[in-house]
């Protein structure tokens, strides 16, 4: 791919990117969120049309007008969010959109034989008659790979394939990818995780702010060099933070049980304490109960058993408003959908929790002036950049929305902060600010429950780390003594005793 340019309204996503991938290699595309990796690959897969530049495949210039055209050029893509129809079976998903054989009826015997052969060859076992919604995330990913291989893909694009997998599943995936390239296929692997680049790839191209800054052989580089290329400056792998000044117990959770949206048990006896002035990190692969835990603690989900005590007050199964009034701040995972009302202005979003108080309201009539002053103050303090306080929340960037949520949640000095994936999808600047704000809250004496899938973040910020797996706590370790590999094993369901033994 040469000189690829892609503009979106207000953003230059790809700015003259050159990418050269050799046959039979695993080529990593490394870059931060928003660096343009996915955009570039979507252009190669025909989902976007480039504004300039050319694509050459096997020596010929090609135009990829649609995913169908990409497939006919034997380019396959496994998206970060899987493109599978969950109500259809595995084999139906695999043949979807294909016109092989004759007649309108489906011949599953031949299909199954081919699926079976591919699965065996590349270690992608999965039951072809199972419905997709019954499969685990790892299995669904296998179906996606099979789908591409079934279409004779020769170039396979994987968009952040490891973000949803356990460390062990990641190993299996890497094994599959290695077999694929041994058979002459080419794999392009999008990631922002340095360890994966070092482990899996032959060569790596680093993207930064829409530009390709370098292509290097993995064997001849180091994590530090790649990080520097990726961020554009020296990266400190540790955040400056003072020693914890632990105060009294803020939150005490005893034997907490709760169900998920499908009515299945999601939390199975969670017990822990959180002190003031402490950040307790919750590590785990997504879908292991973290989400339900944050919802139970903030009153958005009912606990089926157990209790959560805030200082002296029992907040188990109180309403969200009661819990908020007790001084619990919630920075939710879905900051747009749950954290804000997207169509309402910054000013209105900032007083969503306090509009009932006399500060903003008298005789049921809102005090617009107070709301305006509050908005101005918050926008300055938290550096929310927006044209004015009447801008709708949905028109803000992810970083500014998160600043808005923080400004609202942290005013009034909450005793407990539940922060779920607070920096997910944010750029470097916003990430740094969010982390700084959380550390300020810690210094002020708040207890912070930090739920994150970013292990680095957890290691950097937390004082203690709690690992959750299938709704159970696998162990709680001091952040200073934490070893990445042990956390990984615990995240995959090995108990703490076995790990340290």
């Amino acid at each position, binding site marked *: 791919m040469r000189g690829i340019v892609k503009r979106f309204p207000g953003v230059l996503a790809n700015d003259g990117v050159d990418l050269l991938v050799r046959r039979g290699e695993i080529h990593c595309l490394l870059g931060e969120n928003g660096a343009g990796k996915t955009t570039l690959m979507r252009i190669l897969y025909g989902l976007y049309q480039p504004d300039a530049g050319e694509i050459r495949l096997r020596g010929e210039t090609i135009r990829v007008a649609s995913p169908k055209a990409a497939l006919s050029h034997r380019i396959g893509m496994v998206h970060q969010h899987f493109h599978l129809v969950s109500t259809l079976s595995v084999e139906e998903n695999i043949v979807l959109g294909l016109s092989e054989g004759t007649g*309108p009826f*489906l011949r599953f015997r031949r299909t199954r034989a081919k699926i079976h052969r591919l699965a065996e060859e590349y270690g992608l076992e999965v039951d072809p008659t199972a419905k997709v919604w019954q499969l685990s995330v790892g299995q669904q990913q296998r179906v996606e790979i099979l789908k591409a291989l079934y279409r004779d893909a020769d170039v396979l694009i994987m968009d952040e394939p490891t973000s949803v997998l356990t460390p062990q599943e990641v190993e299996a995936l890497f094994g599959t990818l290695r077999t694929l390239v041994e058979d002459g296929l080419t794999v392009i692997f999008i990631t922002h995780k340095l360890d994966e680049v070092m482990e899996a790839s032959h060569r790596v191209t680093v993207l930064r702010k829409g530009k390709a800054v370098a292509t290097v052989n993995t064997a001849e580089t180091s994590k530090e060099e790649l990080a520097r290329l990726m961020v554009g400056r020296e990266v400190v792998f540790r955040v400056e933070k003072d020693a914890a000044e632990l105060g009294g117990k803020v939150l005490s959770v005893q034997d907490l049980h709760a169900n998920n949206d499908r009515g299945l048990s999601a939390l199975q006896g969670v017990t822990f304490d959180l002190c003031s002035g402490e950040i307790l990190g919750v590590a785990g692969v997504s879908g292991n109960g973290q989400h339900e835990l944050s919802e139970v603690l903030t009153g958005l989900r009912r606990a089926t058993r157990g209790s959560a005590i805030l200082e002296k007050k029992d907040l188990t199964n109180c309403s969200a408003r009661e819990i908020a009034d007790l001084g619990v701040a919630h920075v939710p995972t879905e900051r747009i959908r749950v954290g804000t009302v997207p169509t309402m202005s910054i000013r209105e979003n900032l007083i969503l929790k306090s509009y009932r108080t006399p500060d903003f309201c008298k005789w049921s009539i809102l005090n617009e002036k107070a709301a305006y002053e509050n908005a101005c103050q918050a926008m300055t303090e938290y550096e929310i950049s927006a044209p004015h306080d009447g801008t709708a929340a949905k028109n803000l960037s992810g970083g500014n929305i998160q600043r808005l949520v923080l400004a609202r949640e942290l005013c009034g000095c909450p005793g407990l902060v539940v922060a779920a994936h607070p920096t997910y999808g944010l750029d470097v600047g916003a990430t740094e600010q969010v982390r700084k704000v959380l550390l300020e809250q810690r210094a002020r004496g708040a207890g912070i429950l930090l739920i994150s899938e970013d292990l680095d973040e957890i290691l950097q910020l937390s004082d203690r780390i709690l690992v959750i797996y299938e709704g159970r706590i696998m162990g709680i370790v001091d952040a200073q003594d934490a070893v990445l590999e042990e956390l990984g094993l615990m995240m995959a369901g090995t108990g703490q005793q076995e790990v340290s033994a």
Partner: protein
Amino acid sequence: MSWESWVVETISRALAFGTPLLLATVGEIYAERSGVLNLGVEGMMLMGALTGFAVSMGSGNPWVGILIAGLVGGAFSLIHAFATITLRANQVVSGLALTMLGTGLSGVIGRAYEGFPLWSKLGRIDVPVLSKIPVLGPAVFENQSPMTYIAIGIAIIGWLVLFKTRIGISIRAVGEDPATADSLGISVPRVRYLCVMIGGVLAGVAGAYWSVAYRTAWSGGMTAGLGWIVIALTIFAFWNPLYGLVGAFFFAAMRVLSFRLQNWLPPELLKAMPYLLAILVLIVVSRGTLQKRMGAPSALALPYTRGED
């Protein structure tokens, strides 16, 4: 009247009444399986009823009337398809507008045809051999419209196509997860247009059956809510043509019984049954894995544009 002949007559009438329900329901199932809710069934049926009546009267051949009614129903449904698929309008609003438009338009144009008896009506037939079976013969195979058997055939073919063929998988994929279907080279608009038109054609034919075979006359608004029963039936059938087959005749039997039992039961109770049962189904399939197994298509009533995921 003997007990036996009472049962025979009830079944026989339920089949006749259920025929248009079945035809239009199979059509609506196709539209909804592709992700397009079409509340314009009542309007499309009225357009079909008027067209069928007028063309049968003019040509003297009821089959020509039914055929043209299907084409008019299909063409009429294109208004909804264009509004919701191409212009991405709200499907509920557009569908309601289609019903109002169809009711009004057929009423105005049809004024000239009101009060005429139809001479070239579609006759009834006895199925040879089968009609000689005791009880079952007279109930199911005697003095029935050929359209009833055609409707049953269409439902079975509809089920085969939806669940056993390539195009069927494409339709379900488009209604379930259009972005995925799109990424595999299936044209979402094309599939949706096709399915909405199937719905329109079958609703038109159902309407024509009503004016050419069942009532053999035209009057404004003559389908009197059949289109709404179809909407309820589509849900009751779990979006499956085979269940639609059972449901259409079951609902029809309710309607027939509401007349025949009105001395003992308030007729409104049985007439309300389709809607009550549809609500019950919605409650049952809205939870847990049942939603995946037999619930509404996930993308139902959601417009699709590429690149918004």
